[in-house]
């Protein structure tokens, strides 16, 4: 079975090869552009772009946070868009494009209601970026890029975030 599926169509690759690949991508960005891999700063810049449209550009220009994280097209924008393109092409090749509203593990515990799941996802996303920006990075910026440089900040983030996630998952999923 899986021997016959070409690696281009395989749904999953070996996690160690994937991890090694991400490690090598880190070499490339450090060597070629003198930058670490990161994601959440760019998302908060998109928040600034939304605010520009909804609340006017002065609101953004006057804000102390966006002063240092100016929403404009650049390196990290292409990194985020590239990630989306790569994932899309990969899913196209492995036939994994799907308009999933409620993932199965959620459904087993909280039912099939898409609205309940959407509320959870919205709140989760909100909390996630709020925490990432307060900490100054996310799983990629702190967890991978920080930890691989043996940064104190990276390891403190990684271990604390993991502990918090374990507790949250226990509280959410302990029934059955």
């Amino acid at each position: 079975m899986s021997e016959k599926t070409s690696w281009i169509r395989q749904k999953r690759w070996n996690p160690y090869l994937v991890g090694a690949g991400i490690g090598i991508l880190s070499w490339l960005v450090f060597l070629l552009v003198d930058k670490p891999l990161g994601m959440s700063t760019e998302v908060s810049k998109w928040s600034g772009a939304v605010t520009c449209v909804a609340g006017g550009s002065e609101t953004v220009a006057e804000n102390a946070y966006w002063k240092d994280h100016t929403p404009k097209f650049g390196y990290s924008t292409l990194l985020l868009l590239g990630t989306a393109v790569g994932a899309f092409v990969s899913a196209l090749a492995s036939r994994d494009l799907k308009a999933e509203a409620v993932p199965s593990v959620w459904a087993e515990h909280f039912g099939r209601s898409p609205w309940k799941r959407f509320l959870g996802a919205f709140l989760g996303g909100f909390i996630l970026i709020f925490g990432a920006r307060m900490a100054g990075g996310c799983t990629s910026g702190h967890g991978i890029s920080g930890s691989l440089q043996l940064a104190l900040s990276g390891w403190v983030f990684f271990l604390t975030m993991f502990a918090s996630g374990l507790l949250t998952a226990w509280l959410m999923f302990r029934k059955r």
Partner: protein
Amino acid sequence: MGLPFSTSSTAGLVVAALVGVVFGVLLHRGGVGNYNVIVNQFRLKDFTVLRIMFTAIIVGGVGIALFHKAGLAAFHIKPAVLAPVITGALIFGVGMVLLGYCPGTGVVAVATGRIHAMVGFLGMLAGGIAYAFTFPAIQDGFMKIGDFGKVRLPEITGIPEVAWWAGLAVIAGILFVFLPKTRSPE
């Protein structure tokens, strides 16, 4: 050769796009663009996330340490300001389990059609706005509590770089052998 390229140069932007594409492919094929895989990591039922992260940290870290020694790469250390890093990480962990993605894997899930991830992405944008408006109130107080600066573990502990990598490799090796290899549903 003008290495490293400026991030605003055409070459730098091409690198960003290409690295992004490969990052997206790897995250997707690693299975971490799947809600079930992320949530089951925190339920200790599927260790894919830890396998990927530990391998990335060790392969990436040993390489960059060597490049740094050879004078080819500079470190980019984020400051360890303990109050915001710890509080932010505690908040982040709750969000990651509730959403089932982190920002990078969330982008993967959005790009592969997951509707709930798209709603989650809107939540991320709202959270970014909320944070930007909270920041002015905390920037001079809370955000500066417990500032250890841009420090690395070898310097603050006095334990040499080599020992850290040897230790991490042993821990990762033991984890990789003994952690269960169960897989979450697609």
